[in-house]
């Protein structure tokens, strides 16, 4: 009570000053927020608008569409994706669509495989006690998570030679295996966190009802853990969709993914900005859409296990 009175007195004495400080604080907060929104979104906005520019707009540095320059389909036409060229045959579009399809197959394939074996392992580690030689549960968990610190370069060159011998070089399947490995620790991390929050009583109840351990997992636990799985899946999808290093080393013509295609275009000199911008836009657009639509799951996945 006494505290409130003092507060009111204080406020009365300094009412105007207090209000000023408050408004000023608000201004700073929103100012900083919008500043960072600008930092985050301007490069995306820039890429999107540049794909509608012509050479003059690029050299003059026009930024705002319809005000400073008239949007033009030139960049998209060079990809064969503008309204007037979409029905015509275009080798660039074919190439692009092939890379796009490769990216989808590898990222979805690797994420699914990682979710499948990762969830199983995470469930096992969260529920049962294992003993494998000297390794206990915590050691097995650590074994999986420690893969996270493995930099891709360490595996890249041995894989190059191994894949050549296994006839897996430049195949989507080979890439899927490697990508699965890169996201598996993250999936196990998220899913273990998820299963640990589901009470054991549910498993026991399911087993009393006559379900086996696998039946309990699929019928009872999995539906509850589904949001966590979605989060892990989307996070894997982002990481594998954007992966460049392995793809650049291990694919050449058949299994090349979108980032490799984008990279090979940036290497060529001469500023063909509009088509580069169109290509970059097409490469980032799927994830921008996923990011906006499924932001909740991404944040859930990223913050899993960090707060206990």
């Amino acid at each position, binding site marked *: 009570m006494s505290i409130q009175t003092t507060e009111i007195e204080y406020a009365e004495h300094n009412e105007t000053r207090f209000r000023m400080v408050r408004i000023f604080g608000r201004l700073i907060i929103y100012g*900083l*927020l919008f500043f*960072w*929104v600008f930092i*985050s979104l301007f490069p*995306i906005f*820039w*890429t999107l608008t540049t794909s509608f520019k012509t050479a003059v707009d690029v*050299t003059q*540095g026009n930024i705002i569409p319809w005000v400073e320059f008239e949007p033009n389909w030139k960049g998209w036409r060079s990809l064969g994706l503008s309204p007037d060229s979409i029905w015509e045959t275009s080798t660039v579009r074919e190439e692009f669509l092939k890379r796009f399809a490769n990216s989808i197959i590898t990222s979805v394939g690797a994420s699914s495989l990682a979710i*499948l*074996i990762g969830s*199983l*392992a995470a*469930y096992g580690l*969260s529920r*049962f006690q294992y003993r*494998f030689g000297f390794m*206990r549960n915590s050691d097995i*968990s*650590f074994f999986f*998570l420690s893969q996270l610190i*493995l*930099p*891709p*370069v*360490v*595996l*890249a*060159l*041995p894989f190059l030679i*191994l894949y050549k011998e*296994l*006839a897996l070089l430049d195949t989507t399947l080979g890439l899927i295996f*490697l990508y699965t*490995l890169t996201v598996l620790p993250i999936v*196990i991390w998220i899913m273990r966190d998820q299963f*640990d929050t589901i009470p054991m009583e549910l498993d*026991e109840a399911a087993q009393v009802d006559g379900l086996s*351990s696998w039946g309990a997992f699929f019928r009872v636990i999995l539906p509850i853990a589904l949001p966590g799985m979605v989060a892990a899946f989307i996070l894997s999808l*982002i990481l594998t*969709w*954007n992966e*460049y*290093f392995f793809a650049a*080393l291990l694919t050449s013509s058949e299994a090349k993914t979108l*980032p490799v295609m984008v990279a090979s275009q940036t290497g060529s000199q001469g*500023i063909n*900005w509009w088509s*580069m911008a169109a290509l*970059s836009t097409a*490469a*980032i657009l799927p994830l*921008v859409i996923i*990011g906006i639509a499924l932001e909740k799951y*991404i*944040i859930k996945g*990223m*913050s899993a296990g960090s707060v*206990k």
Partner: protein
Amino acid sequence: MNTPDATITEEFEIIPDRITDRRRRIGKWLMRGFFALFVGIFLIQSSYALGFTDFGFENWRPVLYGYLAWGVALGAGQVITRGEPGYRALFVLPAVLFVISVVIVPMLFGLAIAFTDYNLASFEGQKFNGFDNLVQLVQDDFFWNAMRNMVFYVAAVFVEYAIAFGLALLLNADIKARKFFRVAFLLPFMLSPVAVSWMIGKSLMENRFGPVARLARNLGWESPAFFTDPWIARLSIELMDAWVSIPFIMILLLAGLQAMPKDVIEAAKVDGANSWQNFWKITFPLMLPVSATAIVLRIIFKLKLADIVINVTSGGPGGATDTLSSFIFREYRDRSNVGYGTMIAIVYLITIIIFITLLLGFISKRMQKMT
């Protein structure tokens, strides 16, 4: 990493399956048989590859199939010989077999080629050259240069962390349209580093027409060039990497802020502490565990930094922006030097393991002192 306590096994009452001796024998022979098959294929193929025998396969693929078949048989064998515990083992078995085949095997293989002069461009084939690669590495200025650059990049994580903390505090403040700001702040994280290389490195920061260069000219920098001076180039690369990954740290810290006990903060407000004191006395110490997680994870990812460097500067000017990964990438791409490249990679891995272990040890020691 908390382990489920040991009582868990007892809570589940395992009804022992009646496993007859015959069943157990069948399971054992199944596992042994397929293991023999796998080893057999491997031996046939290796003797063929080494030129001892004429009989063999076109490539090593059959060995992979043999491994897969053995994996399946191993799983089936577990269930047949052990019943319920076998079923439980099936949960982790696929992941374990998978990781062993794609990590342990290539690592051993990598160790073997690290001590050879393996070069894809040479026709003579590889031969063992002992510690030559290691000697070459110690004398390689580019290697040490890349290592020094990594120190800079890792140190920059703390700046990223400070900015991310500020953003997390902003998002956690009493603001309207929080979801919009959160999504906008998160978006850079979704973008492919390769696309970012072009979007920022090659167009926004382009010397003549890029808006950043224009801005720099307006601010009085006569002829802005972001990738010619070593320090400016390094900073530019770091800037791009920070742009992509600050959201990652920010989300972790935001989760931490939201999980913070509200009553503590309320109590502090009543005490009349201003928000600055509040932050350093309450928020920051409470956030230390989350901060440690975020920084360690971020450092781990930072140590893999390669895509942006490869695509924007390919390590230049004069190796000023090189990371270890981009350096090895070029060692392979330009010189096909697989043996030497693998040796650098393994030395790098050992360095990372030592560094991360020391870091984790340091953090857990500090944490114990705090509490």
